[in-house]
């Protein structure tokens, strides 16, 4: 038979109709219980690896990942957001998640098969059709890199090390079994030091704490970690939490030694600013006895955290409460040396 144009057209019209018809009949099995055929499984996984490899080409070169301060917040996030599917060094995968299709793999075994950039790609963007979720925000690469740093340590990690990192052992009593994450798992003063990327909340102003919690809850301040930590929290609990942390005495998280020249540069910027470079004096807003309580206290805060926040302000990714634009304008023209100097100065103030 001769194939004519009308045959081609008729086929093109009929094929999708046939597809809809079969879909409508309801004879396609979607149950997960049987699993995939081995060949489907192989094929899907093969596609996933190839796609991840290609997408990872876009990922910029990783920042240094060996800073131990990256681990506590990532371990906490892992406990809150990943362990229920992937298990953790302290806890195996549950039968319920193993019945997922595909089942979430044991990360201790598969992490070594990926490069840093590929892990970043997976954790930041998730994996379609598998249940592997994306990071709660696309704006916080620094947090995702911390998770990559943590994943690298997962193979062979001892359960106690993991509990210590995630702050699970910091829960006050052994009565709750298994121990769960609380705000203090991350924010307890005893767990913080000069390198911490987790801020100290003790002695912060109530108004600022409250506005920050609202900003996280309303997606106005991107942080995958805090947004996950707050997902179970009720809005009505914010004021009590803010008041409780504000009432604690602040401990200074300054490093033992800081470059005196940097401290001096930091003090000068904080006290007088640099009008020629359009940097206002920080102390006209912060740390004033009679100042606006929405302008946070910086003294004694961890310098590593301060520097991270300043970098976020400079790159326009920080967000925050109703006053955050002021700080964005104030930080606009800071360079990396200013950021280091100001963080050291305020930490030791």
């Amino acid at each position: 038979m001769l194939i004519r144009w009308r045959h081609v057209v008729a086929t093109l019209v009929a094929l999708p109709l046939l597809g809809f018809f079969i879909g409508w009949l309801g004879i396609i099995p979607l149950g997960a219980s049987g699993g995939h055929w081995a060949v489907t499984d192989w094929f899907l996984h093969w596609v996933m690896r190839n796609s991840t490899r290609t997408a990872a080409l876009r990922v910029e070169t990783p920042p240094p990942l060996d800073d131990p301060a990256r681990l506590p917040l990532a371990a906490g996030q892992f406990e809150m957001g990943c362990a229920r599917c992937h298990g953790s060094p302290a806890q195996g995968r549950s039968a319920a998640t193993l019945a997922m299709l595909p089942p979430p793999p044991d990360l201790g075994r598969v992490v070594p098969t990926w490069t840093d950039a590929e892990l970043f790609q997976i954790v930041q963007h998730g994996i379609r059709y598998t249940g592997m979720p994306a990071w709660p925000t696309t704006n916080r690469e620094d947090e995702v890199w911390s998770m990559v740093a943590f994943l690298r340590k997962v193979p062979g990690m001892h359960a106690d090390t993991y509990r210590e990192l995630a702050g699970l052992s910091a829960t006050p009593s052994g009565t709750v079994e298994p121990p769960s994450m609380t705000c203090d798992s991350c924010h307890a003063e005893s767990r913080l030091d000069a390198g911490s990327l987790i801020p100290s909340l003790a002695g912060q102003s109530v108004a600022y704490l409250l506005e920050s919690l609202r900003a996280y809850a309303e997606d106005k301040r991107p942080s995958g970690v805090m947004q996950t930590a707050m997902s179970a929290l009720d809005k009505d609990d914010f004021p009590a939490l803010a008041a409780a942390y504000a009432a604690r005495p602040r401990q200074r998280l300054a490093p033992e030694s800081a470059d005196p020249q940097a401290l001096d540069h930091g003090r000068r910027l904080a006290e007088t600013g640099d009008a020629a470079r359009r940097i206002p004096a920080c102390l006209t807003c912060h740390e004033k006895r009679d100042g606006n309580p929405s302008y946070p206290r910086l003294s004694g805060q961890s310098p590593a955290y301060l520097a991270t926040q300043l970098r976020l302000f400079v790159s326009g990714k920080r967000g925050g409460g109703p006053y955050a634009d002021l700080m964005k304008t104030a930080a606009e023209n800071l360079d990396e040396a200013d950021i280091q100097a100001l963080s050291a100065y305020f930490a030791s103030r």
Partner: protein
Amino acid sequence: MVVGGAIIWALVVGLLLYAGHARREPITARKASWLILGGGVAFPVIVLFCLLAYAVWLMPQIRPFMPALMDNKPQIEATGEQFWWRLRYLDDGGNTAFETANELRLPVGERTTFRLKAADVIHSFWIPSLGGKMDMIPGRDNVLSLEPTKTGVYRAPCAEFCGTSHALMAFSVIVMERPDFDAWRQSRIEAAAMPQPAHPGRDLFFRHGCAACHTIAGTPAIGRIGPDLTRIGERQTIAAGTLANTKDNIARFIREPDAIKPGVEMPAFGMLPDGDIEAIAAWLGGLK
């Protein structure tokens, strides 16, 4: 100017009508070529030459091309910033006697020399009623001198496109008699040593951090990123000639500067608690 324009217009129209209506013999080719040579070449050359000579003669007074040789040190340093004017009155030693913004006061009948600068992009300093314009160029000091001959208030727009709010960047010029000018100048110099009395608006100004960018003489506010607000209440306009100087307008500007001047370098303070902005505006508007 209008009268001169009207006369020339009438002349041209008259000639046109004459040429169109009068029926005469055509003039000879010889006459025609003389007319073209005379009216088309010689006349404009002579007129333009005279104008050029006059302009060249005038130039050194307006733009001293060798300011060091001509004994007129700048008395005022004007800096164009997006989108406002920083004005510094200099003392005999060339140091800043005091700073103000967006409103210039000059003595009548005397030559004032300006040093012109720009902080970010090119702006242009132009007081149409007093003289020519001159560009303000980042990294360069230009010198201009002007001699107002009549007292009064003049407006001076920025004459070089400098960004989204270029059209909202102007300043006012108040030309005053010498004694009035001296009294004003002296009082501005002394303002630094005269503490401003307490006021609820004053406390709020400091509480909310306005001092990060603004200076007000007689208070601890020494921010230098935005305009000096010392005695802002005595100015004709606010926000570089954009709004009339009323307390309501000051409040409006504090609340939403970006809506009034797109791209403005001042952040909006609309989130301040109710009443705070009004109190600050009342205090600022009363600074005279």
